[in-house]
């Protein structure tokens, strides 16, 4: 890999390589592999969580960071094109990490520069390092990525993390349960894809039946603004809230993932349950990003 723009570009080997490297970085978090290297973090829209995770990853590897955290503080606020910003920054750095509200921005950037590009989110399209950290979290908690039962709950229509994760896991013989209100079901292209590729899945509106059989419960935000009908939102919002009492008859190895931040889809009483994994999942992001950075720069 010489860039990471979309999870759909990643082979099974790419994914396994990143996941295994992330494990190494968790064991040895501070190898000086990026000594003397300069990384740009170009955040054309703010995302403190993702930016801090990337910058921590770079600094732990011994590299240095330049960039901006908001388009308002960058030259793009003066009307500079994405093209020109990328060309300018390419003169200075060894790697570009970029987040941009425009979909396809990272792909385009990667085509106009020789500097490797990592997509840190392009609108509602892709956020591949989030997927890598999800995959690493699954591997770490289950010991394998193969043959798992994964239930995805909440907003499956707009949730890009859901779409990327389900595509990335396609290599590993998963069984999926998709739980969502009618209005927020998976876009038709995904069921079509899974049918064509013999991936086992079903779609439900109630999460209770999937709880006892799941290895991974991937929760997502159900946001009010996604509903055209607010009555519908009021009806479903509590249906998609996970509470600690619901975890009683679940498998011992079940872990609950959530891309964070959450709203009310996971009740606070779940936080103390040993099956809650979402805070550690966020911590895994730094290891996964160290792995992606080093792999793209050919450092390991």
């Amino acid at each position: 890999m010489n860039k990471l723009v979309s999870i759909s570009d990643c082979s099974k080997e790419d994914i396994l390589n990143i996941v295994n490297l992330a494990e190494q970085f968790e064991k040895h978090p501070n190898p000086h592999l990026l000594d003397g290297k300069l990384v740009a973090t170009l955040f054309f829209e703010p995302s403190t969580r993702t930016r801090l995770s990337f910058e921590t990853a770079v600094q732990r590897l011994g590299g240095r960071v330049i960039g901006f955290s908001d388009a308002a503080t960058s030259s793009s606020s003066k009307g500079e094109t994405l093209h020109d910003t990328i060309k300018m920054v390419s003169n200075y750095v060894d790697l570009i990490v970029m987040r941009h509200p425009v979909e396809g921005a990272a792909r385009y950037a990667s085509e106009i520069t020789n500097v490797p590009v990592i997509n840190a989110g392009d609108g509602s399209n892709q956020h591949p390092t989030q997927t890598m950290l999800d995959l690493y979290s699954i591997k770490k908690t289950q010991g394998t990525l193969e043959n798992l039962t994964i239930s995805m709950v909440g907003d499956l229509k707009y949730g890009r993390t859901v779409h990327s994760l389900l595509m990335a896991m396609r290599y590993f013989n998963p069984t999926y349960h998709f739980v969502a209100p009618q209005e927020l079901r998976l876009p038709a292209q995904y069921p079509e894809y899974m049918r064509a590729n013999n991936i086992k899945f079903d779609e439900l509106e109630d999460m209770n039946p999937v709880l006892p059989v799941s290895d991974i419960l991937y929760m997502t935000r159900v946001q009010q603004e996604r509903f055209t009908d607010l009555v519908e939102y009021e009806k479903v919002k509590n249906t998609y809230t996970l509470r600690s009492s619901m975890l009683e008859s679940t498998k011992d190895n079940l872990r609950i993932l959530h891309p964070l931040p959450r709203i009310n889809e996971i009740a606070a009483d779940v936080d103390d349950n040993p099956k809650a994994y979402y805070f550690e999942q966020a911590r895994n992001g730094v290891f996964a990003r160290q792995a992606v950075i080093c792999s793209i720069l050919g450092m390991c």
Partner: protein
Amino acid sequence: MSKKELVVSALENGTVIDHIPADQTFKVVKLLGLEECSDQVTIGVNLGSKKLGKKGIIKVADKFFAKDELDRVAIIAPDAKVNIIRNYEVVEKIELTLPDEVTGILQCINPMCVTNKERGVETRFHILDKKRCTVKCHYCERIINQEDLILK
């Protein structure tokens, strides 16, 4: 000559594109750049067709297109038939084949796509399903069905 054949005048030399779905006819005209063409162009729409119900036909005098130019027509008119005419005779029938990808012809329907937001980015689409002609934007990865395709 029968009455039916007279609906669209006969061609001495040139290219006939037949069996275009009636509502796609003017898109094909645009796609082939015939709006700016100085050759004689005859366009027939809403002609009767056993297969399509209503079809369109385009005849361009003294013009012979490159294969890849014609293949683009398959994006909006997959069943179109192309005949090359010389001296009033069909001398060649060209089968259209959809390319694996198309650049610069279609416009992405996603308003947030970089091809619509940043100037100077040429559009590029991968053909996912050649039968149904669904395409995927190379940049924003939006999948677009044949009926929603927009020509630039």
